């Protein structure tokens, strides 16, 4: 079979084709549906990115990004979110092999790193508001707080979701419905990291680039 598996013959060997095999298993349908939701979420973020890009120079005499953004804080936030994406992947592997203790450990690490990210972001926002750079100050700051705050809100929602999922693992064990929800959570968490790549590049790094 492996020898005959040239490119043109793939999928026509022993198993029936997708149309003959009937509906796909629920895990695939659920994850694909959630993938569609995540793509629509990315489209929503693209609208916020477009707003930010249009308004980035509309500072109305107020502070611009170069005066507000702290590179070190952003670097630590980025490291936290990237590491939490990795531990989330490790958690997915532990779920795949049904190891409960390892799942809890990596879920706790994912939660701690996500919470550290959120704490740093809230501290950054509080510092900006303390020096008068509030969302009301200029169109640039309105767009900034909308875009970055929307991502932060997603992270906060993800943290709550993670706690709920761990409670479900504790109470309901790895039954199929719980495993499907955990798969959706992992997709959500990795997608948030992808959005953060766009965020730190466009908002923070391009905002202070020489």
């Amino acid at each position: 079979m492996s020898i005959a598996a040239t490119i043109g013959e793939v999928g026509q060997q022993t198993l029936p084709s997708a149309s003959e095999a009937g509906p796909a298993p629920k895990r695939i349908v659920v994850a694909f549906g959630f993938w569609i939701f995540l793509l629509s979420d990315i489209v929503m973020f693209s609208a916020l990115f477009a707003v930010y890009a249009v308004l980035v120079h509309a500072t109305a005499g107020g502070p611009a990004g170069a005066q507000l953004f702290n590179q070190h804080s952003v670097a630590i936030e980025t490291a936290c979110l990237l590491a939490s994406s990795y531990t989330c992947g490790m958690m997915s592997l532990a779920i795949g092999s049904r190891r409960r203790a390892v799942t809890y450990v990596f879920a706790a690490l994912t939660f701690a790193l996500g919470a550290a990210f959120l704490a740093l972001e809230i501290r950054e926002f509080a510092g900006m508001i303390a020096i008068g750079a509030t969302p009301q100050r200029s169109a640039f700051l309105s767009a900034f707080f909308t875009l970055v705050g929307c991502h932060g809100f997603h992270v906060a929602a993800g943290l709550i979701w993670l706690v709920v999922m761990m409670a479900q693992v504790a109470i309901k064990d790895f039954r199929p419905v719980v495993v499907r929800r955990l798969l959706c959570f992992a997709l959500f968490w990795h997608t948030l990291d992808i959005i953060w790549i766009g965020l730190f590049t466009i908002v923070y790094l391009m905002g202070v680039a020489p």
Partner: protein
Amino acid sequence: MTDSPYDLAPGDTSIFPRAHGRAPSGVLVYAIGLVLAVVLTATSFWAANTPLLWAPGVPLGLAVLAIAQIGVHLVFFLHITTGTDNTNNVLALAFGLLIVFLVIAGSLWIMTNLNAHMMPSPELMNLQMQR
């Protein structure tokens, strides 16, 4: 190279052994992804802060690094690959990226065009857009 009549769920690595060669273990896949992502992120932060590079070219370089890192995350963390068992996921992604491109590029194009053609008096321009 699929042994299943269905596409994979996004985020799933194939549960079947590959027809030729061995599929890499999950731990290795995530580790490679992490290393690549860290290298790309560190390069981005370095490029934005170094005086060594030609400044006008830095934003373009940052964009390239970001797109590369998004690709790394898609392949190594979300397991969206070009395999035959991933067609549905890739097609959905391609449509999403088309919409993202239209929204961002279209908005910037229209607003730049509008600013260029409206030509308000300089005082009014300053009220709207402090540059």
